[in-house]
């Protein structure tokens, strides 16, 4: 009796494990690994995860993707990489070999995308990065032909910042002197290396230059020193915590400049909420063109489903990267990864940030500088696409 029960149970168990396999062909398994905790947990929660949620929700609501003659819904498998490249690599390996996912969506941040790129390439998945802004993209795209780079380069972003400053200077709105700050890591270093020669070339006079350690929020002495140099404009390649701290201190100490630019985090809606009217005229990395109905519609849908406004930089790009993946799968008409990679390389895709047509696996058209204007972070500098407005001088705090 006992043995028979056991036998029956075994058959049931076998049936249970076999049953989903029979339906598996109508589900596309998509793997995601990105930070939910660790230093980049905040950025991931703001920019990355809500877009994946929105994308999966919208596709499944619409009945799934049309892959050849099959209608396939998406099943998402997600892991936290704890902002740790080692864990991120293990996650990718697990997604590829144990979960056997059909596709993998991009990890989050420049560093972790580069760290995981070899593992993603090894398993032959398309790797559409939407949160990596580095000057290495051309080289990376060549090294890993399965990888695509959508957020632009540090040089593009720096060129945009210097262009916006130059426009104000040439219009006689601000003088020549600039205070320059950067966070002491790869991000800050890369941007300063690109921006500094451009500023000098454009005839700016750098009256104060300093870097500070990653994670610094006690920036009173830095702003005091910058203020003592009496600059006409202020440019900082900073991360969210320090972006908020620098802005607050500049406001408190009364650092009055005609152009005030901070790095990552300026494009967060919480930046506007925190500084209110004082945010008006502040520039930073990112910006979108809300005059474009597609962008405006994306902002509405994002807010409706996730309950929060997207950030005004990489959010739209992240969603666009997912759109590229979905369109490439449908266009290929199969889950053959090599074929999908080829489609992405050669196709054009209609996304919320415009038409994406990769040139050597790099998307060349990006917004580079945004400026807070009446509660919206409007693109005032861009490479290859239309801006939302021209930069204006920042009013006094």
């Amino acid at each position, binding site marked *: 009796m006992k043995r028979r029960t056991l036998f029956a149970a075994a058959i049931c168990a076998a049936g249970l494990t076999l049953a989903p396999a029979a339906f598996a062909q109508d589900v596309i398994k998509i793997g995601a690994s990105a930070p939910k905790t660790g230093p980049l*947990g905040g950025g991931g*929660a*703001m920019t990355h995860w809500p877009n994946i949620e929105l994308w999966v929700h919208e596709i499944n609501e619409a009945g799934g993707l049309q892959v050849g003659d099959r209608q396939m819904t998406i099943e998402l498998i997600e892991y936290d990489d704890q902002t740790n490249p080692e864990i991120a690599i293990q996650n990718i390996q697990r997604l590829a070999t144990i979960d056997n996912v059909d596709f993998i969506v991009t990890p989050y941040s420049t560093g972790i995308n580069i760290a995981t790129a070899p593992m993603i390439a090894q398993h032959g998945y398309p790797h559409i990065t939407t949160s990596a802004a580095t000057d290495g993209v051309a080289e990376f795209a060549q090294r890993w032909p399965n990888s695509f780079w959508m957020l632009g380069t540090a040089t593009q972003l720096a060129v945009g910042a210097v262009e916006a400053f130059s426009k104000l200077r040439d219009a006689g709105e601000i003088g020549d002197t600039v205070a320059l700050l950067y966070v002491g890591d790869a991000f800050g270093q890369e941007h300063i290396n690109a921006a500094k020669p451009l500023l000098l070339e454009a005839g700016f006079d750098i009256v104060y230059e300093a870097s500070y*350690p990653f994670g610094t929020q006690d920036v009173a002495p830095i702003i005091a*020193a910058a203020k003592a140099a009496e600059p006409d404009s202020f440019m900082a390649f900073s991360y969210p*915590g320090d972006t908020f*701290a620098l802005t607050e201190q500049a406001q408190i100490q009364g650092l009055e400049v005609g152009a005030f630019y901070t790095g990552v985090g300026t494009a967060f809606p*919480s930046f506007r909420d925190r500084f209110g009217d004082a945010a008006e005229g502040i520039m930073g990395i990112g910006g979108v063109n809300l005059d474009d109905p597609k962008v405006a519609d994306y902002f509405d849908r994002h807010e409706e489903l996730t309950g929060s406004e997207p950030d005004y930089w990489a959010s739209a790009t992240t969603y666009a990267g997912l759109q590229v993946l979905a369109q490439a799968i449908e266009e290929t008409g199969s889950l053959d990864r090599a074929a999908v990679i080829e489609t992405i390389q050669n196709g054009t895709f209609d996304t919320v940030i415009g038409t994406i047509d990769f040139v050597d696996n790099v998307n060349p058209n990006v917004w580079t500088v945004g400026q807070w204007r009446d509660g919206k972070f409007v693109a005032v500098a861009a490479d290859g696409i239309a801006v939302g407005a021209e930069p204006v001088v920042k009013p006094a705090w």
Partner: protein
Amino acid sequence: MTQIIVTGILLSGTYALIALGLTLQYGVARIMNLANGETLVAGCFIAMWLFTTLTINPIVGLLLIAPAAFAANWAVYRVALEPLVKRAKNRGQLEVDSILATFGLLFLFQGMMLLTFGGEYFNYTFLAQRFDIFGSGFGLNRVVAFAAAVVIAVGLYIFLYHTRYGTAMRAVSADPKSANLVAIDVARTAAIAFALGGALTACGGALLSTFYTFNASMGVVFTMKALIIVIMGGVGDVRGAVLAAIILGVAETAVASLIDPSLTLAATYTLFIVVLLFRPQGIFGRPTS
């Protein structure tokens, strides 16, 4: 120059708020609490929540946060840590066990905050206005946090050095076995010290939240800072922790203003090494026998 000193002293107030709670927890209750930073971040979140949803001013909010944190930390000590204290054969074993246990608690607390608030960055505007000292502008929120740090440190000093119960607490810190012999309820005193330390840390978090941008996974940053200050000052000595906080605050500000802001961390760790080389027991610490 005066601006450097004032900025530095304001920063030391922040550092004292980060470290005073851990001084009690490690010095008296002998729990090397690695979840200290999470307690602090929880204080940040609760202060923000009280302020943004119930418009309770964070300073008034301390009246709610302190007793709540005291009760929560009391419970944590009774449930999770007291069994370790009871079975530990010596101080070394308790230290290792408490490090492992609080390392686990760190992830539990962090996970709870992630579930409740999500992983995003948070901040809010409270007293973010200019306050003039000697003609230079400083954040009023930092000045208020500094004043609170002074009140807390002085209050703690009076409690520990001029009250009967405080003396008992110091006795437990110095030698738990002998304290037991003079009819001090060591277990209860340690639990109260741990709970009081947790309450101080949460209050520190509430005050810091008025000028820091924080998220659920930032606790470890504060734990690291607290560890450096507590070890530099001498384990379990409030005066040492305050002195270490002042040294670090002023030194970091001076280095950032006069040399280069990128060297602030280097300055911190250089001072830390110098203190450990010449006074391994910390500035006010007693040599271990």
